[in-house]
């Protein structure tokens, strides 16, 4: 989970908290301290909700003995009233019927898509943060964020098991 902390540190100094680091059939949780969204540097007063679940399983690959895999994610950009601006979800297990990676769009589009689960590919947190910086005016905390974020995302792309 260290790469995820590194990724969010491009836009916030808030620290992630986790529910465990032991191999387990049940996923562990990862979120910002207090379970609350993290306020970003941005004239629009956006914040980032980061809810992530991961599993730790034994692996016999060249990358080490243990493999940490994403089980579910919610990456949401919220306005100052905590309303969703955009929300990237993937929750294939659990009780939701929407098991595919999808995006929730805000109200106000030509058609009301607020209740839709518009499909996406699997989204990395780096892709969400790049979008927030480039298109929504979030200020990065590092001058070299493009290169560092690309490096972080490449690690994710190499190690992911699907998508």
């Amino acid at each position: 989970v260290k790469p995820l902390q590194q990724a969010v540190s491009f836009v916030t100094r808030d620290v992630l908290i986790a529910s465990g680091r032991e191999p387990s059939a049940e996923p562990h949780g990862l979120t910002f301290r207090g379970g609350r969204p993290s306020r970003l540097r941005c004239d629009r007063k956006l914040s980032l909700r980061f809810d992530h679940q991961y599993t730790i399983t034994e692996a016999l690959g060249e990358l080490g003995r243990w493999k940490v895999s994403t089980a579910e994610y919610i990456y949401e950009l919220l306005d100052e009233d905590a309303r969703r601006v955009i929300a990237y979800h993937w929750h294939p297990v659990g009780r939701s019927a929407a098991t595919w990676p999808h995006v929730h769009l805000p109200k106000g589009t030509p058609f009301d898509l607020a209740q839709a689960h518009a499909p996406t590919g699997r989204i990395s947190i780096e892709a969400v943060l790049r979008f927030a910086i480039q298109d929504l005016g979030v200020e990065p905390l590092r001058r070299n964020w493009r290169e560092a974020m690309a490096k972080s995302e490449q690690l994710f792309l190499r190690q992911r098991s699907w998508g």
Partner: protein
Amino acid sequence: VAKGIDRKAARADGQVQYLSREEGRALFDRQARELMNMSGEEFLRRYDAGEFDDILDDSDHPHLMHLAMLIPFGR
């Protein structure tokens, strides 16, 4: 100033904090009370009973899926 920002950001790297089971349950309970006006235990019971299934990922109830994602802290 920018270098200072970089150094502070770098210090945040890799500092994921691991909660004990008690700390995790307390976090989950606080979030359930704050967002749903119910205890964490009640949320889990109603979640497991399927009471939220129809509106779990509904944009009008965004707190439900957030709490569902925090369940590993609450169990």
